[in-house]
């Protein structure tokens, strides 16, 4: 007897099966179609050019589940098992259909091997599902939600797999073929089922299993299972190059308008909660949940752009309040770092902010005033431009003169000749503690013999605060102001104190013609090139706090660490959260300029200070004026002043270079 599988063995009304299957696929296709239409309607830029590289990268990441293993191996394994179980069964069923309708090939050894693979697929799937259920409902992993959808979807999966195994057992019991040793579960259960019983329950069971499977396919676009389609789309869109538009009007609009990768992400989100776990604001007990934010954004987008409204039928997000929560985000990007589908919940927050700013209502009072001041005084600190260079008194720092260098050549050509423009930035210019950055950096540049100059009291605000709080019109004005000044003074090579100014110039000024670096890169080059020589040994342990806009947003992790390591005698230890997983100090995203109405149970900066204290380091080094202020304040409120010191990288390096002056 040759092992084989008769199609629709003892099943009548096969036409009915095909009709239902066709319907299920139609329902699936309609659901996917609505998604694509919502994506298209809600986004302005549909220009995405096809990229093979993106396809390859996406497939690689999906097949190995790389983003899922990151930071959570347990969840990674559970998903890996479920994914591969599902894929094997999907391929198997497809082969079966080909065997039955196109070209029969599943006979003999091939059929036995096929059966074995399906058995393994089923087992992987079962193991994955059970592990997932255990994690969610027994271990109750804190980041996981237990909404109706979460239970129904997984239980549905479980019933499909179990009914599949049971069906196999019933068939084995009814047919009694001689090749049962090729299977594990089936024969085990088959032993308990008498042949007569098997024959009588078989048709009902077959139909039950078939309907559950078909309904499962139909339900994909209407539940969080949509990530089966949405996640690969989000991966591809993340990896494919986006054509940046250079129209300023569009730049304003793009703040509120979505990009297609962003909308795909909203629908690919399965509410896994990794973002909530990583969010420093949520961690400090503030009412911001990036996950809820994404869900609300998704829901609103669907209500606006789908003719049928939101089609997720097992999920109710109406009660989630998002307006106030929007002001808590520090835009640190920790959520984006851990998101398995490359989502950036903080960008959804940015859109919400832009909408609230446009409406004008619910803008926190201090922020409202700060933006007014930013417009009136060109800085968020209510300081006069007359005081911009107070820090430089007695230091003899050169100021760039208007028109002096402009000989009509393009900025690129001037690059090699003009002085390095030190863009001090508002916070570093005005804040008493942060001014130390400007002082020590200028001293270092002088010691290294660098040809540099500052913009003096003409230095404008780069607009970062306006951008991150959603005041895109004001950002546009600041950007134009800065760009015009740089052009007028032929500024072509800029170094900034703040990672925020650095990020803004580098990534948010489309088509800019100047080169911009953060001071840490300049220090690294000066030390490596021998222009700055750290001579004096500093015999203590330090730890380094990665500023979000230097590290996570711009991937500069090593420059500051190299500078620290170049100092003789110093020992660098890392905090629990460092590099891409660094923990925000709480000063970004406009949070520096918000009052009492925006606060949680704990302060993010205090949480960070405690973490630094646990390393046993004597000095906490950072490279951002906002981090410096936040952490210095926290040091005082927590009371570690005698054990720990907060220093800027410049201050530390200067101590070693200037031989202890």
């Amino acid at each position: 007897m040759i092992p084989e599988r008769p199609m629709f063995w003892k099943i009548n009304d096969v036409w009915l099966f095909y009709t239902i299957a066709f319907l299920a696929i139609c329902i699936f296709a309609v659901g996917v179609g609505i998604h694509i239409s919502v994506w298209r309607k809600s986004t302005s830029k549909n220009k995405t050019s096809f990229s093979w590289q993106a396809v390859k990268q996406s497939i690689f990441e999906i097949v190995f589940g790389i983003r899922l293993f990151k930071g959570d191996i347990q969840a990674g394994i559970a998903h890996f098992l479920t994914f591969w179980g599902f894929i094997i069964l999907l391929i198997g069923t497809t082969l079966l259909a080909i065997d039955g309708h196109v070209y029969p090939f599943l006979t003999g050894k091939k059929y036995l091997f096929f059966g074995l693979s399906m058995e393994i697929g089923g087992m992987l799937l079962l193991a994955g599902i059970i592990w997932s259920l255990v994690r969610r409902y027994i271990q109750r992993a804190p980041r996981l939600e237990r909404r109706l959808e979460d239970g129904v979807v997984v239980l549905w999966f479980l019933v499909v797999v179990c009914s599949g195994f049971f069906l196999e057992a019933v068939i084995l019991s009814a047919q009694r073929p001689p090749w049962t040793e090729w299977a594990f579960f089936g024969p085990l259960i088959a032993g308990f089922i008498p042949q007569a019983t098997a024959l009588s329950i078989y048709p009902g069971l077959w139909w039950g299993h078939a309907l559950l499977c078909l309904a499962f396919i139909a339900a994909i676009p209407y539940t969080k299972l949509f990530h089966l389609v949405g996640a690969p789309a989000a991966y591809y869109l993340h990896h494919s190059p986006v054509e940046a538009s250079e129209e300023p009007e569009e730049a304003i609009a793009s703040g509120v308008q979505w990009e297609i990768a962003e909308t795909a992400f909203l629908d690919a989100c399965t509410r896994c909660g990794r973002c909530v776990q990583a969010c420093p604001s949520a961690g400090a007990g503030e009412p911001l949940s990036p996950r809820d934010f994404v869900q609300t954004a998704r829901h609103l987008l669907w209500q606006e752009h789908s003719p049928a409204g939101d089609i997720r039928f097992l999920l109710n997000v109406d009660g989630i309040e998002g307006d106030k929560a929007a002001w808590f985000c520090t835009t640190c990007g920790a959520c984006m770092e851990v998101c398995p589908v490359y989502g950036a919940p903080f960008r959804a927050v940015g859109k919400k902010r832009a909408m609230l700013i446009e409406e004008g209502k619910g803008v926190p009072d201090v922020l409202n005033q700060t933006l007014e001041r930013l417009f009136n005084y060109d800085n968020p600190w209510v300081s006069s431009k007359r005081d911009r260079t107070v820090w430089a008194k007695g230091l003899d720092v050169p100021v760039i003169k208007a028109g002096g260098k402009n000989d009509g050549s393009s900025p690129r050509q001037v690059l090699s000749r003009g002085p390095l423009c030190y863009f001090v930035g508002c916070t570093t210019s005005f804040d008493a503690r942060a001014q130390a950055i400007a002082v020590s950096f200028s001293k270092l540049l002088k010691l290294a013999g660098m040809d540099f100059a500052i913009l003096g009291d003409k230095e404008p605000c780069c607009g970062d605060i306006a951008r991150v709080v959603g005041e895109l019109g004001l950002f546009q004005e600041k950007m134009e102001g800065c760009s015009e000044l740089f052009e007028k003074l032929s500024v072509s090579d800029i170094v900034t104190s703040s990672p925020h100014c650095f990020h803004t110039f580098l990534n948010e000024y489309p088509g800019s013609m100047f080169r911009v670096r953060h001071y840490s890169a300049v220090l690294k080059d000066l030390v490596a090139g021998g222009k700055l020589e750290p001579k004096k040994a500093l015999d203590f342990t330090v730890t380094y706090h990665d500023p979000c806009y230097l590290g996570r947003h711009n991937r500069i992790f090593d420059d500051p660490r190299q500078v620290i390591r170049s100092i003789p005698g110093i020992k660098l230890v890392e905090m629990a959260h460092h590099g891409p997983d660094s923990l925000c100090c709480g000063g970004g995203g406009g949070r520096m300029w918000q009052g009492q109405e925006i606060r949680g149970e704990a302060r993010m900066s205090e949480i960070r200070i405690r973490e630094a204290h646990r390393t046993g380091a004597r000095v906490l080094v950072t490279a951002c004026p906002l981090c410096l202020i936040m952490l210095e304040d926290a040091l005082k409120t927590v009371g570690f002043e005698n054990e720990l010191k907060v220093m800027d990288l410049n201050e530390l390096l200067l101590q070693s270079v200037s031989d202890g002056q």
Partner: protein
Amino acid sequence: MKEPQIIVCAKQIPDPEAPFSDVTVNVEKKQVSVDAPDVISPYDENALEAAIRIKEELGGKITVLSMGRKVSDTVLRKTIAAGADSLVLLEDPLFEGLDSFSTAHVLSCAIKKIGDWDLVLTGRQAGDWDSGQVGLILGEMLDVACVSLARSIKIDDGKLLVEKTVPVGYEVVEAALPALVTVSNEVGELRYVARSKMLGLLRRPMTIPKWNSKDLGCDVERLRKLQLTELAPPADMGRECTLIEGSAEEQAERLAAVLAELR
């Protein structure tokens, strides 16, 4: 009832929050000059916010009145962007530097000229001189009920309900319309006006009525200038920072000693 017609009086002043380095006091000329952009007096912004909230609830129309020798519509158009319906500028060289009584007279002429109104809102005081008189004098001239220092204003069934700030809390005052209310900061900040909205409004052609003393038919003889007898900068604006060292108890003790000495 019919939808309320609200008039908000708004004064354009140099930013009272301007950084100290931008303010110069000329003792001889008795002039304070502020090298900063002009703004709408903050309490008047509170008054506008209160008016907009009433309009959101009941409908109606908000007219903003502003008086001066020369007022800038780029500053005052913010009121339209925030939600006012029309803006009337009262401009005349004669309107420069008027005292509170004369200012109230000019405003009362303008309000009578507008005619149809139910409620006049003013800030509790202007952010430049902080006299706090114009509102109540104006109410007297208009011969209507006046409530000062409002922290919340509601119109319910044709009646006015005001929560009025008093030193130990607030009183709830009821009054018939028409009425005048002076508004305090507890009402809340004026909603934020996005830059893009403001620019859109500035680009849009708009006819803003400008009335002078003749248009208003006000009694020019009664207009008197504010007389300054003396102007002096605060004695010492220098700041000194001393860090008190020691344990918490020692710090508290030393701080108490310092405070006692300064007293």
